[in-house]
């Protein structure tokens, strides 16, 4: 499959403070993301993952290196709107990304900016709201919605642009378990049914475990890049970086250390149940 996002030798430094010191946040990132992939980005606070995300739709531009999305160089100012339509972004705080006091008008915001004619806009807004399951709430005020519902509205606002990929920067960090489930189900559906590439930045290991591929960032570099079972089975390294692994992965890791014959690459509950059953049957 084609690469939708290509990042080559990306460096980024924030403009220095009064002393002119520069702080390098990204130190040479090479990353290709294939179309339709569901990618999780892990890393502790300050590891550079949000900074990386902001490079994908040109909120930030590289100090050195190159980022292209669907063949568009993010540094190409003349194609900025094309780029941002192609790669939409959802942020952590649901309150601070909703612009309008009426749900459907918020979903339409990007289309209004792009000058989409009314008839088409109406259809795209309705479709987007239906696809995140918020159509019945189209005339509500955002302040009447729960956190999970607000995030779904924000996702609909991006979906309405018909993007090829969506970058979500800790979209569930401020939600309760129910809201988290709603949002994760919505994201997964976007990926499966609409083939949209997903880049999910998260602190929740269970969310990352459900992705196709996980990259782990530390100190501005990518230190791991693999399928979830392979990444999480490196329990020692993950802990050293300050990250968690799913409880079941930790359990099988501990059991292996005590001499049990059990696969280290277990990340889901079902796999763990199967493996323990096997252990006791043999």
């Amino acid at each position, binding site marked *: 499959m084609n690469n939708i996002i290509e990042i080559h030798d990306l460096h980024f430094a924030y403009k220095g403070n009064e002393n002119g010191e520069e702080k390098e946040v990204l130190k040479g990132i090479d990353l290709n993301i294939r179309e339709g992939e569901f990618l999780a980005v892990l890393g502790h606070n300050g590891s550079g993952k949000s900074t990386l995300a902001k490079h994908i*739709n040109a*909120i930030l531009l590289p100090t050195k290196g190159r980022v292209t999305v669907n063949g568009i160089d993010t540094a190409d100012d003349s194609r900025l*709107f094309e780029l*941002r*339509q192609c790669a*939409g*972004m959802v*942020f952590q*705080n649901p*309150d*601070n*990304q*909703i*612009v*309008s*006091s*009426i749900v*459907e*008008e918020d979903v*339409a*915001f*990007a*289309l*209004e*900016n*792009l*000058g*989409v*004619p*009314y008839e088409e*806009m*109406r259809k795209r*807004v309705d479709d987007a709201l239906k696809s995140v399951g918020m159509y019945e709430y189209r005339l509500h*005020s*955002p*302040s009447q919605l729960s956190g999970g519902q607000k995030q779904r509205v924000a996702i609909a*606002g*991006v979906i309405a*642009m018909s993007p090829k990929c969506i970058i979500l920067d800790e979209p569930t960090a401020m939600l309760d378990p129910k809201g988290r489930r709603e949002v994760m189900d919505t994201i997964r559906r976007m990926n499966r049914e609409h083939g949209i590439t997903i880049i999910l930045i998260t602190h929740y290991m269970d969310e990352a475990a459900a992705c196709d591929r996980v990259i782990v960032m530390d100190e501005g570099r990518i230190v791991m890049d693999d399928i979830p079972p392979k990444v999480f089975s490196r329990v020692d390294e993950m802990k050293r970086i300050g990250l968690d692994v799913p409880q079941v992965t930790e359990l099988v890791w501990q059991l292996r250390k005590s001499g049990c014959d059990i696969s280290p690459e277990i990340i889901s509950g079902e796999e763990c149940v199967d493996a323990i059953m096997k252990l006791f049957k043999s």
Partner: protein
Amino acid sequence: MLKDITIGQYFPMNSVIHSLDPRFKIVITLLMIIMLFSGGSMICLAIGAVYTVMAMLLSRIPLKLFWKSVRPLMPFLVITAVLNIFIIRSGDTLWKWKFISITEDGLNSSAFMIIRITLLVMGSSILTYTTSPITLTDAIERLLSPLKKLKFPVHELAMMMSIALRFIPTLIEETDKIISAQKARGAEIDSGSLSHRAKNLVSILVPLFISSFRRADELATAMECRCYHGGEGRTRLRQLRSSYKDYIALIITIVFLAAVIAAGRIF
């Protein structure tokens, strides 16, 4: 609790007045104000009153809500009316005591003024009661759009207005939370000495300011991500469409206005 305060005075309902195009409603309201102020006779005012009351009834909003809109003004109105009664000395004297006299003209003019202002306030309330603040903002933006040619920032003002409306509930909730949190640290918001209270006010305002700036910053990034670039070339989901109803309403208003002006000439 702060949360319980209702913002704006919009009462969503299904009435003819609610369904009118907000742009027409604004223009009609302006015409109504002119109507109430043109013509100095009681007959003119009576025609204006018929018009206003008719509109109030058509809006299907309980009449006591209109009364509520005038009530805060009542003391002011009464004082002005009383002054009027004593100051005006023309016309037949009805009652006299030492240097104070009450004349027919004085009474008439006071009653006239009270009725006129009451009608004016109630009539203007119809607009805010039947139109949501966001629709109103939108209509004002479109009515003022010719001013864009004069470099007047119509779109920017309207965008600021609508973002403010969007964030009022959020900020109220936030203020509520900060007050509770500082109270939990022993801050006395509603008691204590004045300097103490001022200090405690700082403990609420500083976090509120900081969080508002953070919100503004994040919102700006989110808007940029969704291709916001000012008002140029923007289309709108909200379509303001005028129908035959709007023209009928406008014609009725103009007829009434003409009647008032004519009555003013004749009587």
